[in-house]
């Protein structure tokens, strides 16, 4: 438990009362409006269901809306004075005994080594520009199993050490056993080297951070001894596909107000997003060891989304967790296509739904439970919207089939059925306003920020970009809704997902890929369109934006994956971000590093056989292997595998078999010598005569 001055409770309480009052009042007002409309003709069971669904959804929408609105208001007046980056240093507290070194840790698993190390080099270059690189050590924590990737990672690591003369400052470790995925990877790091460092900054494989941001984060931690974690808001950058560029633009333009709003009410009880965050190592190791949950996946077993849980554990132990919304220079990359985005969502969905039981864990603060609930709701809202649309459609059908009754009993005067079109339209407009106003707030904010306005391409292009982005998000929202509904149902039926490497580079989707991924949504869209047009034509027109997104899912997904369209939009100045118009040094470094890596890659033979045959690669790999004893039986098995490679080639082995060979120095040396001796030197080498 930290003993230094904690953040004042009074401010936290006041802000939360304001925020939650606004959210609850908005929800109650919207509910009252819709309930009064329903009550006019008596509430039916399906209307009761609609009310319940609407309550959940509007609660979610208004939370997001008020977060953005408060964030907008704060930024309009120059930012939040209570943010971690503006608070004066807090003295006192116990002194951290760990040396004031910071480890930059990057857990990787079957990522493209070229991109990983180009990014890491860029970060290191930017760090060296600050003149404080000596305060940091870099750690690449590889969980890659495939020897092809493993060997390549090692070569990239060693070249990086040589190029920067950073031997003993940049480290690489390939874990023998992948226990507990990424959280297990970090846990092993803390267990083995944790006492060397006071802080660690966790990076994702696609993370990029400016050196000045890294040093700033360390300074903030030093100034606030009660803080265990500071999360920086990473901005998506670098991709060129239309899909990614639209999302990059949206995150860049709208993200700040949401982050500022979140920071307003969360303050020292914020959350951890898994990367681009600085962590005080000692309390993290003391309080964040994660157990396996009882039961099988997807709800039991290893904890998928470890970040939320770790933040909750730190808060439970009395440490502060902050979101530094105003920290710039923190970047990540987005999945380049709608399909890749959905694939990532599948994993996140499972991780977040697994938190259901965390909501009921003893000892967590109410705000930690709220973080878990919000994470769950970010995926559960999709099936709720889907159900809401279904019930609304059904209700519209029932209404259209109901014959109005004008005369009751002996009454000679007709009783006109009351229409609630005005109330329902108002409710719809209020909901739409809450969804779209944050975009307007961001636009308005640009009016007072002339520098930013230029960086986004000028007010006309920005307005057009916001308009197109809004249309795009309206069209893709129903596709993601169906995807996420499917994911939630799959997880509820206890189907788990595998731990697969992510597709991070730009690539155009083929018709086949798009068809296989979206045919179901297209079918649902066309069917729902036909049914609604046939039976409830008035509802059809309201429903059209949702139907259009689904019916055109295949072409939409294909077109948005196009890099050519993304670049065309860029040439037109659409969806421009400040990182595109004036890239920071770290992004330029990355670009140069990737170009250099691509140029040197052309000259290298890329097969596993050639890697093992190369004396440099093979020796390096052997040098990095941990010492372990091999039993006689294993020795025979390895020898058999060696001969299998010699006779049938490396492709005849499975990945675990290749890994077994690659983990044994003797087998590797044998293969290396054979591979080199049998290589076809052709006439490429100059021919020499021995004297």
């Amino acid at each position, binding site marked *: 438990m930290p003993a230094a001055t904690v953040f004042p409770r009074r401010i936290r309480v006041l802000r939360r009362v304001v925020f939650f009052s606004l959210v609850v009042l908005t929800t109650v007002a919207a509910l009252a409006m819709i309930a009064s409309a329903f009550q006019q003709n008596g509430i039916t069971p399906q209307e009761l269901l609609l009310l319940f669904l609407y309550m959940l959804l509007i609660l979610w929408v208004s939370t997001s809306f008020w977060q953005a609105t408060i964030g907008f208001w704060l930024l309009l007046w120059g930012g939040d004075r209570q943010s971690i980056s503006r608070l004066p240093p807090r003295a006192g507290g116990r002194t951290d005994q760990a040396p004031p070194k910071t480890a930059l840790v990057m857990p990787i698993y079957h990522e493209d080594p070229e991109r990983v190390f180009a990014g890491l080099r860029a970060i290191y270059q930017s760090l060296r520009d600050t003149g404080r690189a000596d305060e940091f*050590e870099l750690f690449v924590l590889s969980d890659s199993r495939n020897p092809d990737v493993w060997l390549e990672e090692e070569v990239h*690591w*060693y*070249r990086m*050490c*040589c190029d920067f003369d950073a*031997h*003993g400052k940049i*480290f*690489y470790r390939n874990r023998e056993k992948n226990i507990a995925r990424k959280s297990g990877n970090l*846990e092993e790091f*803390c*267990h*083995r*080297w*944790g*006492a*060397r460092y006071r802080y660690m900054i966790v990076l994702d494989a696609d993370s990029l951070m400016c050196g000045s941001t890294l040093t700033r984060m360390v300074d903030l931690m030093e100034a606030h001894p009660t803080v265990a974690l500071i999360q920086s808001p990473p901005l998506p950058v670098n991709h060129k596909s239309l899909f990614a560029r639209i999302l990059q633009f949206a995150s860049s333009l709208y993200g700040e107000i949401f982050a500022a709003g979140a920071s307003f009410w969360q303050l020292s009880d914020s959350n951890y997003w898994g990367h681009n965050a600085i962590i005080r*190592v*000692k309390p993290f*190791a*003391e*309080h*964040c*060891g*994660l*157990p396996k*949950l*009882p039961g099988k996946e997807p709800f039991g077993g290893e904890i998928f989304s470890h970040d939320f849980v770790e933040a909750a554990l730190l808060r439970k132990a009395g440490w502060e967790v902050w979101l530094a919304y105003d920290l710039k220079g923190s970047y990540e990359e987005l999945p380049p296509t709608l399909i890749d985005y959905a694939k990532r969502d599948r994993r996140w969905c499972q991780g977040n739904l697994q938190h259901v*039981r965390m909501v*009921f*864990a*003893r*000892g967590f603060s109410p705000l930690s439970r709220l973080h878990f609930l919000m994470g769950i709701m970010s995926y559960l809202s999709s099936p709720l919207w889907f159900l809401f649309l279904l019930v609304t459609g059904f209700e519209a059908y029932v209404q259209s089939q109901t014959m109005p009754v004008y005369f009751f009993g002996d009454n000679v005067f007709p009783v006109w059925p009351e229409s609630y079109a005005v109330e329902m339209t108002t409710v719809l407009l209020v909901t739409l306003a809450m969804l779209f106003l944050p975009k307007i707030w961001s636009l308005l904010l640009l009016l007072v920020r002339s520098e930013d306005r230029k960086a986004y391409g000028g007010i006309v292009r920005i307005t057009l970009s916001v308009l197109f982005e809004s249309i795009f998000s309206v069209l893709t929202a129903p596709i993601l809704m169906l995807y996420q509904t499917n994911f939630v149902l799959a997880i509820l039926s206890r189907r788990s997902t595998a731990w697969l490497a992510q597709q991070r580079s730009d690539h155009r989707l083929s018709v086949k890929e798009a068809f296989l991924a979206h045919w179901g949504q297209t079918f649902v869209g066309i069917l729902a369109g036909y049914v609604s047009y046939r039976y409830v034509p008035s509802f059809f027109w309201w429903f059209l934006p949702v139907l259009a997104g689904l019916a055109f899912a295949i072409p939409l997904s294909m077109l948005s994956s196009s890099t050519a369209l993304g670049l065309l939009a860029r040439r037109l100045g659409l969806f421009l971000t400040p990182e595109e118009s004036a890239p920071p040094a770290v992004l330029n470094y990355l670009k140069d590093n990737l170009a250099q890596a691509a140029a040197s890659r052309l000259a290298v033979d890329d097969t596993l056989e050639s890697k093992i045959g*190369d*004396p*440099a*690669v093979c*020796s*390096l790999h*052997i*040098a*990095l*292997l941990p010492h372990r004893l091999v039993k006689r039986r294993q020795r025979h098995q390895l020898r058999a595998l060696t001969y299998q490679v010699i006779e049938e080639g490396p492709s005849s082995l499975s990945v675990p078999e290749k890994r077994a060979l690659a983990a044994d*120095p003797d087998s590797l*040396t044998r293969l290396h*010598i*054979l591979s*080199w*001796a*049998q*290589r*076809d*030197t052709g006439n490429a*080498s100059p*021919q*020499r*005569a*021995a*004297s």
Partner: protein
Amino acid sequence: MTGSVIDSDVTVAASAEEASPVPQALWDYLDRVGVRNEALRASLARQCLKQARKGAGPQVAEQLASEAIEEVQRRLDRALAQGLGLHPVRDAAKLAGLRAALAMGQPDLSADFLFEGRDADNREQQLARLIARLPIATPPEAHLPMPAQPFHFVFFKSS
């Protein structure tokens, strides 16, 4: 895997046996591990081939090349161990690291000085440069226990 190429132009002239051609693979291997000086490379190739032939009888070219490459590795390891005061078995990983440093450090680093004895030019400086490029994959361990936190759930089974 394909068969090796024997270069008929590459000959070892010392004796009838030594006059047989040096496998191109062996020649290239010596170059790749950092033996820059051609005369030294030829001499090493001759010695390694001779050693490979010893007691093995007539062999096919591939086997001869393999044996000779293995001998190159042995000699390189021995030279490195002698130069840096390392144990050839206990420090096998470190020796592999130095081999990697030599092979990846070209053209800045060369293995020639290791075979040229104590009189080699700038031997100490070259050794220092080599040591400076020794791969250090991980720092010394500094353990920090990370115990798994128990979870107690209200409606679910606890961990």
